[in-house]
């Protein structure tokens, strides 16, 4: 039986990181958001990039995830951006800390102004609750329910044994939200790196094993950079392989097409960042590897590998190998039923649907034009 969680198809969802501004400056925030930050995505850029996303491969991108910072900080922009996205056919989701849900009526009023938003992820944890009381979360949940919006509650912790964390989980369960809780582990990047001594993470010498589905959903930042995911790599200068491009330099379609052939990205998607560790070990590069990783935190593995220029150079060299690249292409075909990489490497044998070989594993698919081949 397949116990894997369902995954979003590659590039079927894209994120807009609308702002670094936030009502609170939590110590665990990887993007170092806060009231002091000024960087916001310009409205005209947001709309232009959403339009490009809509046109990509004739509507391949289905989901538009709005994040920050705190997207509700600029409610007028959020309303315009979400409405434009919905008009172009996107499913709109948003992340928020619910600072706006001071009462039930206010929460209902705010969400009513955002009819295009279909899903809301409400963040609450020990750090958020220093500024945003639990009642605000309850009000936001109530308003989402009243308006028929989908929602989940994201809780971050450095240690699942922490008493305060456990209290939050109990409180959420007490209001009937057990099924909506999504827990994640704090990793030391951004502000969390500067305050790492305050966290009490468990570590292990072996990396977390498992494929990362979040790397299927790239994110656009206010300055036009595109990252393969919303993880801690976003805090690094854009010279690592998960930095996909810059929309002030090229079109979104060029950036996304090129990502189809990114061997680091697809190794992480197919197997997980631990596979990169295995590759480095196979090539005798153990000395470069981190000595420990945070337990159950794949982002930590990715970050620790790709923040080291020597490791990035070594991986780029290893992944030049044609056989490894073909392995990744076949693995995408086998595990994910994704044909584009195999097609771009000219691994297809025929366009005849009836041809089969007894020792082979044929896969057929309708594909979009392979513009990344150029």
């Amino acid at each position, binding site marked *: 039986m397949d116990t*894997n*969680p*369902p*995954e*979003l198809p590659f590039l079927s969802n894209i994120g807009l990181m609308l702002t670094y501004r936030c009502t609170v400056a939590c110590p665990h925030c990887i993007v170092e958001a806060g009231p002091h930050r000024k960087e916001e995505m310009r409205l005209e850029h947001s709309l232009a990039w959403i339009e490009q996303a809509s046109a990509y491969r*004739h509507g391949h991108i289905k*989901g538009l*995830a709005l*994040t920050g910072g705190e997207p509700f900080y600029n409610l007028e922009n959020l309303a315009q951006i979400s409405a434009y996205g919905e008009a172009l056919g996107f*499913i709109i989701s*948003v*992340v928020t800390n619910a600072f706006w849900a001071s009462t039930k009526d206010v929460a209902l009023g705010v969400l009513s102004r955002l009819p295009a938003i*279909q*899903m809301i*992820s409400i*963040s609450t944890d020990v750090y958020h609750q220093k500024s945003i009381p639990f009642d605000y979360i309850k009000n936001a949940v109530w308003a989402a329910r009243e308006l*028929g919006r*989908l929602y*989940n509650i*994201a809780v*971050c912790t450095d240690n699942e044994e922490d008493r305060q964390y456990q209290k939050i989980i109990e409180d959420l369960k007490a209001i009937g939200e057990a099924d909506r809780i*999504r*827990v*994640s582990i704090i990793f030391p990047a951004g502000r969390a790196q500067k305050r790492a001594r305050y966290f009490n993470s468990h570590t292990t010498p072996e990396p*977390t094993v*498992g*494929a*990362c*589905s*979040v790397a299927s*959903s790239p994110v656009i930042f206010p300055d036009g950079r595109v990252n393969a995911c*919303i993880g801690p790599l976003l805090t690094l200068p854009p010279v690592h392989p998960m930095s996909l491009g810059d929309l002030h330099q090229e079109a979104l379609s060029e950036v996304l097409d090129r990502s189809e052939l990114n061997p680091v990205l697809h190794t992480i998607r*197919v*197997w*997980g960042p631990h596979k990169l560790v295995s590759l480095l070990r196979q090539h005798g590069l153990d000395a470069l590897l981190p000595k420990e990783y945070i337990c159950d935190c*794949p982002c930590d593995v990715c970050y620790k590998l790709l923040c080291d220029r020597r490791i990035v150079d070594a991986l780029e060299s290893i992944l030049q190998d044609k056989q490894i690249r073909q392995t990744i292409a*076949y693995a995408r*075909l*086998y*595990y994910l*039923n994704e*044909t584009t990489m195999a*097609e771009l490497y000219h*691994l*297809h*044998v*025929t*366009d*005849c*649907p009836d041809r089969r*070989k007894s*020792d*082979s*594993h*044929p*896969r*057929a*698919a*309708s*594909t979009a034009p392979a513009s990344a081949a150029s």
Partner: protein
Amino acid sequence: MEPVRELRFTIPKSFLEVFAQEPRFVLKPFPGLWPVDIRLLRSGLLEKLVADEEFNANFEIMIVPRG
């Protein structure tokens, strides 16, 4: 509208043997900054459709394996 193209790929036996012995394990998605949860979406949309009398009078939902 783009014409549908059908391509056929053959994964060599040597790769198949390796992949068959390496079941893929997917980590739970990191939720904090990433709200899209297709389980939530799917269940919500299906529930909405099932509850819609007009929809039910005119359509039915069939879940079939991918081709």
